[in-house]
């Protein structure tokens, strides 16, 4: 309960800091929002209409008052409630994030464990070079490279029709598909974005898993498990991975917000109408209410993820106290 209260105080601090950061920045939102042909009088009228001419403290009080009633205000640019804008964008980013996070963990933990188990073969340094390189690659560049392969490369190397993956958008622009065909269409569109996000994440997880599992594999009880005749699969599955799990679950929880935020680039390249695109558009058009709402959502996600990690740890590892 105390931790929950602390989480709310933290969230309040975040929105207050963000509010100050956004409102104290130089530049005039109204001047950016009006069309270039508008007169200064038009801008002044808009400023009054959006209550941008009130003192910052008054604007802050008004925004906080709305927030407590669950009202995030109205988007300057789109003239509709911020909650409507965000509730369209959030499921897309969250779906993208969860799908790639799942893939990230399956692939990352597998690679890391293989590396730790085969530390004396060439496979280990080889995989280290691969994971570290992918870890070092910017996600938007990976995205562009994949697009190059599946568009430019697909024609040059003559890919079969099934492998010509769509590179942009969420669904077929013609939009005639329904039922199963629509699901297949969505999955085909999701393959490239999910792969990019998962690749970057999996590289990091693999690096972490490798060092954790390698540490554990040297423990005395692992040697005992080997000595009593257990097969490699039983030793790694039952003894090593079970002990590597708690830090990995923490990592999973801590990764979710990063993955959702990381989708800024992926959404930008693949033209997905998610949170990342929403906040980038809102920032560049000085749509303050949407910026505030999106930041609030991101911060809530981070704080929730941290809370979940704290609460899950004692369940997975009884030696640790809550």
């Amino acid at each position: 309960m105390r931790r929950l209260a602390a989480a709310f105080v933290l969230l309040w601090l975040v929105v207050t800091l963000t509010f100050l950061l956004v409102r104290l920045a130089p530049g005039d939102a109204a001047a950016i929002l009006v069309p270039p042909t508008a007169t200064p009088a038009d801008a002044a009228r808009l400023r009054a209409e959006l209550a941008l001419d009130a003192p910052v403290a008054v604007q802050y009080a008004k925004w906080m008052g709305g927030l407590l009633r669950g009202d995030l205000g109205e988007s300057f640019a789109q003239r509709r409630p911020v909650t409507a804008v965000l509730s369209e964008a959030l499921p897309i980013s969250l779906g993208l994030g969860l799908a790639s996070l799942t893939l990230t963990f399956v692939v990352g933990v597998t690679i890391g464990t293989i590396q730790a188990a085969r530390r004396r073969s060439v496979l280990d340094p080889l995989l280290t070079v691969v994971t570290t390189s992918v870890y070092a690659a910017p996600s938007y560049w990976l995205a562009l490279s994949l697009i190059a392969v599946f568009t430019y490369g697909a024609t040059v190397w003559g890919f079969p029709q099934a492998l010509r993956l769509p590179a942009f958008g969420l669904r077929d622009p013609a939009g005639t598909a329904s039922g199963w065909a629509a699901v297949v269409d969505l999955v085909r569109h999701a393959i490239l974005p999910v792969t990019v996000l998962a690749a970057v994440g999996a590289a990091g997880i693999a690096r972490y898993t490798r060092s954790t599992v390698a540490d554990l594999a040297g423990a005395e009880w692992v040697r005992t498990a080997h000595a009593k005749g257990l097969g490699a699969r039983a030793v790694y599955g039952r003894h090593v991975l079970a002990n590597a799990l708690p830090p990995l679950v923490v990592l999973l929880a801590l990764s979710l917000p990063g993955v959702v935020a990381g989708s800024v680039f992926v959404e930008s390249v693949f033209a997905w109408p998610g949170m990342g695109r929403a906040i980038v558009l809102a920032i560049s058009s000085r749509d303050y209410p949407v910026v505030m709402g999106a930041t609030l959502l991101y911060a809530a996600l981070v704080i929730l993820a941290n809370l979940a990690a704290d609460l899950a740890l004692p369940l997975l590892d009884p030696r640790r106290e809550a």
Partner: protein
Amino acid sequence: MNRLATFSAVLLASLIAGVVLVPALAGTDPLAIGDVLATRLVPPGATDGLGRFHLLGTDRFGRDLFVRMMLAGRVSLAVGVAGSLLAGMVGTAVGAVAAWRGGVVDRIAMAVSDALLSIPRLILLLLCAALWHPGVGTVLAVLAATGWMGVARLVRGEVLGVRAQPYVSAAQALGASSRRVLWRHVVPNALGPAIVATTLGVGNAILLESGLSFLGLGIQPPKPSWGNMIAGGRDLIVTAPWVAIAPGLALIVTVLACTLLGDSLRDRLAGERPRDIAERA
């Protein structure tokens, strides 16, 4: 691991030599736009209409990509190193003062750092960068403003440990002022983890700078940076993919070398924490 560290040090050194020497020795001005029709979009390893050879090809204005890439490397490397260093310095100062003064100062500093850590760094970076005028100065300020929290926590923890050491009481007993004790005796002994974090932060800072530039919020063209070069090749990705691919490879090699170097430094000092990985978006 040591061979890897040597390898990455050599790689970084040759990269620095490359970004310093190549644009200086290249006959052509990497920003100049000449006979566009004869020289544009030459593929890697080919010769343009004027008979000049281009190792990595040319962009849509006929500018040599290899020379431009090396020129961009100057900006990206300098911004990455300076940005991480600046964040490390701010973090060290905040963490040291917070731990040393304690009380309200400490609680405010840690509350602000907790709040900033609750916003994904990329989003915080976008918030700061987009609202001020884009450019090298803004990128540096923003990297420092969004990167100091981790170092501050590390230094705070170290200072709390070091202040209990007998040599600190000895210095105080000798009559040294509080400020002198903190900066001359405590902080130098609390810097280890901060140095590792700052080294590992260089690669991250380079990635973040390139990301901002890719979105058009960082280094502005015609000044090349790896990020805005990739952005420049974005709509050519179907017809001339090398324009975007080449600067990305330079970026990967650089960040790879920085990460490996930081890794081997860290291996000597401490274990990896989950947050390091989670923060890399």
